[in-house]
């Protein structure tokens, strides 16, 4: 395999940023469609959201030639550079999602939500009062609303970062941004699904609705991914020389198996089949969704594995694609 400037650290970063964006989005969505049934989804999504992207950004900084000089990113706004816009976007998203996560910390760990009610109490932590439930609910709703577009922004940014590079024909299509966005949303939803499945539930109240929300959201997102992948393949194959040649990297070329087995089979078709199987009774109006820990865990893990391989294939295959003709040096 060729050696590429952008390697596994960048792959991980794109994947982790996507997971966070998706976890926040599903949490925000659950907050807004409301009701006690979706409280757990909103909470788990919120508590997960800040961390993967924080780790991812850490990896990205480590990948720099001069990690300690990263702050140069924040002395400027280069509006023609997706990476510059993305840096600011990620900073805003991580900050906001940390506050949002704090608002969802459950009792008895909710000391983060204690605030001084009088000026003279500022230095007396024991006198700080827990925010009123009404205030917490309102703050959650506001941050969910503000953060939702930010999370979509982070999700789509990971695709634009690659897609906005004309000299890499494999990347250079508007479909890439949407594909990465839907994949991000799907991996975030799958993470929440996986965690809810692993935690289990103390009482069955509302579980049916919760599962239906997560599984059907993921089905919709996976189908949207398919709707992006088909035109991605067609447009490339029917496009100019450089573009049509670049798609051969996954149509017989070096990344064919990674793409068709890793992305399409493991990441899309299998989890879609499992989730469709789970939802069949609901679709046919014959009863509750089929559910087991094994099914949910399997579909969740498959979506995550597929989402990771998707980024692996795109980061590497993109760097292997060039304008043609390439003159041997």
């Amino acid at each position: 395999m060729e050696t590429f400037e952008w390697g596994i650290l960048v792959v991980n970063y794109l994947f982790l940023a996507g997971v966070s964006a998706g976890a926040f989005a599903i949490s925000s969505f659950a907050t807004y469609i409301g009701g006690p049934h979706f409280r757990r989804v909103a909470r788990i999504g919120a508590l997960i959201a800040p961390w993967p992207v924080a780790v991812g950004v850490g990896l990205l900084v480590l990948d720099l030639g001069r990690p300690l000089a990263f702050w140069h990113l924040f002395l400027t706004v280069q509006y023609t550079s997706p990476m510059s816009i993305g840096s600011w976007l990620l900073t805003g998203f991580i900050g906001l999602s940390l506050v949002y996560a704090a608002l969802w910390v459950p009792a008895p760990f909710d000391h983060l939500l204690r605030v001084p009610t009088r000026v003279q109490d500022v230095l007396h932590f024991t006198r700080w009062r827990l925010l009123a439930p009404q205030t917490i609910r309102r703050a959650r709703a506001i941050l969910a609303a503000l953060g939702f577009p930010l999370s979509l922004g982070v999700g789509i940014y990971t695709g634009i970062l690659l897609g906005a590079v004309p000299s890499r024909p494999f990347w250079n299509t508007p479909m890439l941004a949407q594909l990465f966005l839907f994949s991000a949303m799907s991996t975030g939803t799958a993470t929440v699904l996986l965690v809810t499945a692993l935690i289990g539930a103390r009482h069955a109240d509302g579980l049916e609705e919760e599962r239906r929300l997560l599984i059907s959201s993921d089905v919709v997102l996976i189908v949207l991914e398919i709707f992006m992948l088909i035109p991605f393949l067609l447009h490339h194959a029917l496009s100019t020389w450089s573009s049509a040649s670049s798609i051969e990297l996954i149509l017989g070329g070096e990344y064919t198996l990674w793409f068709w087995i890793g992305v399409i089979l493991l990441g899309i078709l299998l989890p879609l089949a499992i989730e469709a199987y789970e939802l069949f009774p609901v679709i046919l109006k014959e009863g509750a969704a089929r559910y087991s820990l094994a099914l949910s865990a399997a579909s969740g893990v498959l979506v995550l594995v597929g989402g990771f391989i998707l980024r692996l294939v795109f980061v590497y295959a993109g760097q292997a694609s060039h304008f043609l003709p390439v003159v041997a040096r």
Partner: protein
Amino acid sequence: MTSENKKRWGMVIETRRCIDCKACMVACEIENQVPLGKHRNWVGQIGPTGTFPTLGLRFEPGNCMHCENPPCERVCPTGATYQREDGIVLIDYDKCIGCRYCMQACPYDARYFDQARGVVDKCTFCVHRLDAGQPPACVETCVGGARHYGDLNDPNSEVSKLLATNEHTVIYEEAGTEPKVFYIS
């Protein structure tokens, strides 16, 4: 304002004069202390083409095209890559954080990552020599006289005269990068 301020440095390469001796690469690497294994310029090989006995072989030397519309500058998140008033594309090594996005954006693969310094580097058109009134090292050393440099805005410069009297091309013209390295074959 004098014409000095409106300089537009460019290069013309006559591929028919290139014999693939790679002296330009050696001169550049010594002049600019390029890390071992990295190159700021190169000699590409096109061919052999055709069928015996009408075979063809052509060499295509190159370096950073100092594009008028540089994609590397556009994607740089810190503004480290910039274009000088005379059109030369340079890197501010204090601002470069080594993210290598510019290397993805350059269609000419003209940039390399300097591991030791943690920054991206490339041909500077030998600005240090230009500013002292000397030609770029690769131009000065070229044994076949294939490499020419000069002010594209000055109709009496060597490059302007060559371009006015010869058919010429640029690489990946369709990319809209408007390179300032021109080729006469």
